[in-house]
């Protein structure tokens, strides 16, 4: 089943095309990677999917329903959550509250607060942060802030999770933990769409990879196929 699909998605900033005519899809249960050099339009695509940006060109469908034109909060409540390339946490709130807010607002009917609080604790534990529940989020390390973001996104009970550069700036051990986390998320029945620069990680964890370059899709396939794709290798080596 196609949980997310886009047809002819384009976005211009001023005269510059950040994305031109990109078709893509994500199937339920998959882990799909989105890669490409800096400025390829990866985050733009995520922003369009999550409605942080709007475009009139192209159609994006989530669970078969057209979502272009909806507001971010509506998309979130439909079951599509995301994290951010540069962390956007609620810095002065405790880590737990960050997650709690996700479960409180991210679900259409709303969650009874006691239940939401319990869920939040559980999710913090899931990302390995049960020790820092009351720490203000801004005092956490970058890794842990990213984990808070993941837990917060999970708290909205998504069916599809967009992870934007979860592993950037992490050391090898932390990358391994993050990879494990991504797999664990999928094991909870959540489809994952990731942007990643760490090649080793993305090759290891993804079922399928989409490659963007200068706003256009230049390749798509299994990690194996991508690794052997000439256009992709050129883009990366030619840099």
């Amino acid at each position, binding site marked *: 089943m196609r949980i997310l699909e886009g047809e002819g998605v384009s976005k211009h900033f001023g005269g510059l095309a950040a994305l031109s005519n990109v078709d893509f899809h994500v199937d339920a249960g998959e882990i799909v990677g989105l890669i490409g050099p800096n400025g390829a339009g990866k985050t733009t695509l995520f922003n369009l999917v*999550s409605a*942080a940006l709007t475009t009139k060109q192209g159609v994006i469908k989530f669970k078969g329903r057209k979502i272009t034109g909806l*507001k*971010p*909060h509506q998309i*979130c*409540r439909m079951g599509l*959550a*995301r994290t*951010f390339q540069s962390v*956007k*946490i*609620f*810095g*002065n*709130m405790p880590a737990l*509250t960050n997650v*709690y*807010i*996700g479960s*409180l*607002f*991210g*679900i259409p009917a*709303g969650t009874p*607060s006691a239940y939401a609080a319990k869920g939040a604790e559980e999710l913090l534990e899931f990302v390995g942060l049960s020790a820092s529940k009351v720490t203000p989020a801004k005092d956490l390390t970058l890794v842990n802030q990213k984990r808070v973001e993941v837990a*917060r*996104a999970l708290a*909205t009970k998504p069916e599809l999770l967009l992870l934007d550069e979860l592993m950037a700036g992490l050391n090898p051990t932390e990358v391994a933990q993050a990879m494990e986390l991504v797999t664990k998320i999928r094991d909870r029945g959540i489809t994952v769409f990731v942007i990643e620069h760490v090649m080793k990680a993305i090759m290891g964890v993804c079922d399928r990879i989409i490659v963007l370059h200068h706003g256009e899709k230049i390749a798509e396939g299994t990690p194996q196929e991508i690794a052997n794709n000439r256009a992709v290798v050129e883009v990366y080596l030619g840099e």
Partner: protein
Amino acid sequence: MNSVASIVLNRSFQLGLLAVILIALATLPLHYQGYNIVRLLNIFMFVVLTVSWVIFSGSTGYMSLASAAFFGVGIYTSALLGDKLPIAVVVGIGALVSSCVAFLVGALTLRLRGIYFAIFTFGLVELIKHLTLWWEINMEDRRGRLVVYVENDIIFWVMLSILVATLLTAYFIRRSKWGLALQSIGENEEAAAHMGINVTLVKVITFAVSALFVGASGAIIATRWTYIDPGIAFNPLYSFMPVLMAIFGGMGRLLGPVIGAIAFTYLKEELGTEFPELYMLIFGIILIVAILYMPNGLVGLIQRLWIRGFRRQDADT
């Protein structure tokens, strides 16, 4: 000490104390007619303005300088309708009209951030002022209006009711899911939107709710001023004062702005009457010293001294 503390901290004791204070205040005009009625109602008014400002701006981080616009709308409602309807109705209408203005303004402008929002709202006050002025002069061939006379004790009771409503609203918003949404918008608006919070709706409605109280207090205080015109009604002073008072008191918790407004109003009046020639100088120095040495406002300072005092006490025992 401990037993006293436990009594003082007892919740029902606190509620009881609040009730006693409220009853004492509410019955005051029955046996007292002096100037303290006026002094108190001025203080109430500034507490209302400040707390209303904090309800929206304190948590979302959008610094609104529109208070004077909502206040002025209330004042004008009173001037236009004061002699036609009972005063309570007039106050209600003033509140609603202000709230509608805030709703419109909010819907239009809340995408402006930071200093731009502040300056926009400030420009708005001036625009409304000059439009009213232009309207009065060119369409009605007049300037200014006399406002219906109302007894001080009635004004006092109305203002007290507005104050109680404001404080209750602020308190419950702070403790509610809604307050959490506001706070997360202040922390990071984009993330809040992606967490399923309808940020536009939350902001606009809160803005409109906060304007309710400002408009209501404008409508009732206008009756004390007896004569108003656009320059008097839309005085930018009433935009700046709530901000100063909130920062002066400290915005961390609800008590900060309340104490800030009380202390500020009291201080300003006493200095203005004791040292009329020098009070601005003294006041300016107090502001600067406050901002240099009390980064968390008056409440922050008291807290620091308190904790220090406690430590010493602990060390003594």
